[in-house]
C-alpha cells in the first residue's frame, strides 16, 4: 500500500511495525521523516525533506528507531543540518545545493582517535562514568562515558575509530559512538541551583541583566533590532566550554558569516580558534521547515551529551519563533484544533519542555555540568504580546528586550534597559562580590535607578524643553548619557570594545558613578556649565577602550582632581 496521502510535508501511509516517533524513509527517494501519529497500521509522518515528486503507493520503511543523533568524538567543529547531517560532506558529495534523501553518517567513521583509559581492568563502573578520554580538539577533552553498569573486563589504549571497541564491560563490548533520541532528555543525577553567572563580556548583559550558568534567557525584538548580532556575540565571547549554535530558519548569509568567521576567530581565554569548542547546526529558512522543528532538539541533545561529560555548555537557538512556526504549520496540516493565532494548543508545553532541559546538574559520572539556553524570539510586528514570546517568558528567567527605536538610533546592543529583566541578579550577586567587588550590586542598582529617573525626565523635556529642569536634574541627564553611550553602548565590531571582562565592566561603571557623585556635590559651588565642560568627560567616554586597570585608577584620580580643583 505505501503512501496514501501527501500534503506538503505531511505524508500518510502504511508502515510496517510502526511506532510513534520512529524515523522512516519515505518513497523511492528515501526522504527522511518521523512518525507523528498512528491509526492502526496507518502512520502520519512529517517529512524533513521536500516532498515534491512523491507518489501514492510508494513504500515507506521504518528504521525502527526514533529520530536520534550520533554522539561521540568528532562532533566539535562540525556543521550540521537540522537532522545532524554534516553539511560539508553533503557539499563534497552533491555540490552546492542541498539534495534530498541523502544519508551520511554524522560522525566520521574512518578517523582514528587516541583513546586513553581512565578506568582499569577490574574496576567497577557505572553508567555515565568516564572510562576514558579522547583529545577531540585542543580545547575539548572528549570524555567517553560507560554505557552500562558493570566490571571493566578489558580496556584498551590506542587509536580507534568511533565504531571500534575500546572496552569490555561485564562481557559487553563498548565503542565510542552511541545514538540518542533527540526528543528524550539524557539522564543525570540531580539538578542543582546555580550561583555563578555566564560571563558574556557584553556590559549591558553581564552588569544589568545577567544570566546564570544553567539558566535560560529569551532575547526578543522586531527585525533589525540586532537579535542575531547579540546571539553571535554570545557565541563568540561567553565563557562556556562548549558552544552549540542552532541557526533555525534564519538567513543563509548570516549562517554563512558564522561559518566563515568562527574558524578565523579566536577564543579570548585560550587563543585557540573558536571552532574548537563550537558545533553549528544550520537550517536556513529556505531549507525544509519540518527539519527546523527537529533542529532545536538535535542541538539540545548534543548539549546534554557534553554536559554529561562535566562541561558548561551554552546553547543558542536563533530563532525559536521559526521552530514554533514549524509546529504550527505541521499542526495545521494535521487539521488539529488551533489555539492562539493558529499555534497548536501544546505550544507552551513544548516550549517549556525545551527550556527545562537547561540547568546545572550533578552528572551520572559524579561531576558537574551545565546547559545555558539562550533562545531568540522574533515576534511579528515586534509585538511582545504574541503567543511565542509570552510562552517563552514564562519559562525563561531573563528577558533581553531589543528595541527598534534604539536600533534606529544605532544604539547597539539595542537592549532596552527599562523593559528587560533578569531574575538571576540575587543568585549571582555573591559571585560578583567575591570575584569583582563588594559594592557591585549597589553600584548596579544605583545606575539602574538613574536610568529610570532619566526616562522620567525625558518625558518632561519632550513637553517643555530642558530649560525647566534644575541643575541636578540636568546632571542626571548628562550622567545617564554617559551610562548609555559609554557603558551600555558596545560595538561588536571594535577590536577592544567587543568584549569587556567583569572587572573592567565594574571599573567603568564605577568611574561614571564616581563622576556623578562628586559632580553632584560640587554642582552648587561650581555650576553645571563648568562641570559639563571638564575635559575628564571625554576621557570617561574613551575609557571603554582601556586595556588595563591602571588606566581606571588614573581616570578616577583625575575625576577627583578636576572636581575638587573646581573648589578653589
Amino acid at each position: 500500500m505505501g503512501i496514501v496521502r501527501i500534503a506538503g510535508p505531511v505524508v500518510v501511509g502504511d508502515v510496517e511495525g510502526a511506532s510513534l516517533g520512529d524515523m522512516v524513509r519515505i518513497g523511492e527517494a528515501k526522504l527522511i521523516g518521523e512518525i507523528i501519529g498512528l491509526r492502526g497500521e496507518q502512520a502520519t509522518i512529517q517529512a524533513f525533506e521536500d516532498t515534491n515528486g512523491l507518489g501514492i503507493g510508494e513504500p515507506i520503511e521504518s528504521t525502527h528507531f526514533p529520530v536520534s543523533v550520533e554522539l561521540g568524538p568528532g562532533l566539535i567543529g562540525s556543521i550540521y543540518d537540522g537532522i545532524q547531517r554534516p553539511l560539508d560532506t553533503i557539499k563534497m558529495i552533491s555540490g552546492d545545493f542541498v539534495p534530498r534523501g541523502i544519508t551520511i553518517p554524522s560522525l566520521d567513521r574512518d578517523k582514528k582517535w587516541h583513546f586513553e583509559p581512565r578506568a582499569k581492568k577490574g574496576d567497577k563502573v557505572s553508567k555515565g562514568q568516564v572510562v576514558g578520554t579522547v583529545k577531540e580538539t585542543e580545547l575539548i577533552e572528549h570524555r567517553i562515558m560507560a554505557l552500562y553498569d558493570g566490571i571493566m573486563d578489558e580496556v584498551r589504549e590506542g587509536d580507534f575509530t568511533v565504531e571500534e571497541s575500546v572496552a569490555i564491560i561485564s562481557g559487553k563490548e563498548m565503542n565510542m559512538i552511541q545514538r540518542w533520541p533527540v526528543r528524550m532528555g539524557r539522564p543525570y543525577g540531580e539538578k542543582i541551583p546555580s550561583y555563578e553567572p555566564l560571563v558574556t563580556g557584553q556590559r549591558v548583559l553581564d552588569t544589568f541583566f545577567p544570566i546564570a550558568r544553567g539558566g535560560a534567557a529569551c532575547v526578543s525584538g522586531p527585525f533589525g533590532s540586532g537579535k542575531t548580532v547579540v546571539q553571535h556575540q554570545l557565541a563568540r565571547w561567553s565563557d562556556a566550554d562548549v558552544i552549540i549554535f542552532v541557526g533555525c530558519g534564519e538567513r543563509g548569509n548570516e549562517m554563512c558569516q558564522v561559518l566563515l568567521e568562527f574558524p578565523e576567530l579566536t577564543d579570548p581565554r585560550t587563543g585557540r580558534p573558536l571552532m574548537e569548542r563550537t558545533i553549528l547546526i544550520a537550517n536556513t529558512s529556505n531549507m525544509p521547515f519540518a527539519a527546523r522543528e527537529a533542529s532545536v532538539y538535535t542541538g539540545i541533545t548534543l548539549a546534554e551529551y557534553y554536559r554529561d561529560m562535566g562541561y558548561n555548555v551554552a546553547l543558542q537557538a536563533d530563532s525559536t519563533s521559526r521552530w514554533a512556526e514549524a509546529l504550527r504549520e505541521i499542526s495545521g496540516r494535521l487539521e488539529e484544533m488551533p489555539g492562539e493565532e493558529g499555534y497548536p494548543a501544546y505550544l507552551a508545553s513544548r516550549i517549556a519542555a525545551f527550556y527545562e532541559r537547561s540547568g546545572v546538574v550533578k552528572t551520572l559520572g559524579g561531576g558537574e555540568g551545565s546547559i545555558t539556553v539562550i533562545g531568540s524570539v522574533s515576534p511579528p510586528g515586534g509585538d511582545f504580546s504574541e503567543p511565542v514570546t509570552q510562552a517563552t517568558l514564562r519559562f525563561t528567567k531573563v528577558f533581553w528586550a531589543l528595541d527598534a527605536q534604539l536600533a534606529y538610533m544605532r544604539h547597539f546592543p539595542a537592549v532596552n534597559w527599562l523593559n528587560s529583566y533578569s531574575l538571576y541578579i540575587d543568585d549571582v550577586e555573591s559571585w560578583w562580590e567575591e570575584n569583582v567587588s563588594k559594592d557591585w550590586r549597589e553600584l548596579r542598582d544605583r545606575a539602574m535607578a538613574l536610568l529610570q529617573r532619566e526616562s522620567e525626565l525625558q518625558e518632561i523635556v519632550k513637553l517643555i524643553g530642558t530649560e525647566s529642569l534644575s541643575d541636578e536634574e540636568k546632571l542626571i541627564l548628562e550622567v545617564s548619557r554617559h551610562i548609555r553611550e559609554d557603558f551600555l553602548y558596545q560595538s561588536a565590531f571594535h577590536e577592544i570594545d567587543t568584549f569587556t571582562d567583569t572587572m573592567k565592566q565594574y571599573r567603568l561603571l564605577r568611574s561614571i558613578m564616581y563622576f556623578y557623585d562628586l559632580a553632584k556635590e560640587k554642582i552648587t559651588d561650581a555650576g553645571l556649565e563648568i562641570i559639563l565642560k571638564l575635559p575628564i568627560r571625554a576621557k570617561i567616554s574613551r575609557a571603554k577602550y582601556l586595556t588595563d586597570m591602571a588606566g581606571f585608577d588614573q581616570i578616577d584620580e583625575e575625576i577627583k582632581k578636576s572636581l575638587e580643583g573646581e573648589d578653589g
Partner: protein
Amino acid sequence: MVRDYLSISEISGPLIFVEGTKDVRYGEIAQIQLNNGEIRRGQVLEISGRRVLLQVFEGNEGVDTRNTKVRFLGHGIELGVSGDMLGRYFSGFGDPIDKGPKIIAEEKLDINGSPINPYSRDYPLDSIQTGISAIDGMNALIRGQKLPIFSGSGLPHPAIAAQIARQAKVRRKEEEFAVVFGAIGITYDEASFFMRDLQETGAIERSILFINLGDDPAIERIATPRMALTTAEYLAFEHDYHVLVVLADMTNYCEALREVSAARKEVPGRRGYPGYMYTDLASIYERAGRIKGRKGSITQLPILTMPEDDITHPIPDLTGYITEGQIFLSRDLHRKGVYPPIDVLPSLSRLVDRGIGKGKTREDHASVSNQLYASYANGRNARDLAVVLGESSLSDVDRLYLKFAEEFESRFVAQGGYEDRTFEETLDIGWDLISMLPEEELKRVSDELIGKYLRGRKER
C-alpha cells in the same frame, strides 16, 4: 503512460479536485484542456488516495466537471533557460510575449530550485552602484544581498525601480551584469512604463522581464518570482553574471498566496495570510546569494507596498525578518517633493560593512555614511523639537542641525530621475553637507579623513 482524466469532481476558487487518478506525483504539473480546446496549467497541491487537488494557474473560468480533461505531465513546473533570454519579455509563466523568436532552451530547470547549502555560500563582499545617493551613500546594495523597498500606495516606487534597473552597475570592467525583472500583478501603465523606459535607454539589452499584469491570473503570480529567480540562478551560477532581480510588487504575490490558502480552507494566520507565509517568502528571498568558487551573484530588490503604510503588517513584517535590511520610502518626504523619497533613518542595509570602503568604493564611505546618519538624526530631532517649542527656542547647534537636515534632504536624498551619481559623487555631496557643521561636532569621521576630504573643501 499518459492518461487523460475526465473526472473533475469539484471546482472551488482556483482549485480543482480530480478523482480516480493513478501514479500522480506531489508537485507535478498538469495540463487542463477545456472543452473549447484552451489549455491551462495546474500544479498538484495534495494527493489523497486517488483524489488529487490541483491549483490552476490561469484560474477556473470555463472549467467544467463533464468535459474538461486533465493530463499529468510527470514533472514539476520547469522553465527552459538560455543566454538568449537577455533583452526579452516573458509572461508571468515564462512564455515569450514580445513576438520574438522562441527561446531554444539550453537547460530545463525546476522553478522551485534547491536550497543553497549554507556551507557552500560565500559572504557578500562587493557592492552594486545604483546611482541613487540615498541608497549608495547610506545603505549600499551588496551583491548577494536581498534588500527590499518598503513603499506605500501612491509613492513613486515604480520610478525608483526603473531608475535602479536602468542605472545599476558593477564597477569592474570584466564583470557582466544583468537585471531580471519580475513584475507581479502590476498595472499595465507601470509595465509599459518599464518596458518603454528600458527600451529608450538601451538598458533592455541586459535585462529580462517576466510580466504578470493585474488582470492576468492571480495564481500565476505564485510562479512569476520563481521564473525570474530560476533565470537569475542560471545566469549567475552558470554564466558568471552579477544579476539584480527586481520583484514588484510582493504584496500582490502574498495576496495570491492567501487566495490559494483560503480556497484550501486552511487555518488562517495573521490577517488571513497562511501560517507558512514566512517559509514561502523565504523560499523566494533566500535565493539571493553567492556561492564559493562561482563568479556570479544574485542580488534581490523586492518591492512591496505596505497596506496603510503599516510596517507591522504581515507582508513587510515577514519580509523584514528574512531580508537583510530595508529601504524605506516616506510619505512625508514625498509630500515635500523629494524624489526619491527615501527615509534613511529607518532604512538599513545589514551587509554594508564589508561591501564598501577602500578598494571597493572609497575609504571614507563608512565614516561619511555614519556621520551623515548621526547628523541627520540630530537634525530630525531638532525639527521635532522646533514643532513643539518653536524654532526660536532652539540652541545654535540645534538650528544648525535643522538646516543640515533640510539640506540633506534637498541635496543628498533628492536627485533627478535620470541623474546617475557615482559613489564618489555621492560621497562628495556628503562632505559638502558635513562641511556645514563645526568640526567638534564630527564624531564619526577621523581627523585623517577630515584633513583629506574636508579642510580642502572648506578652503575652496
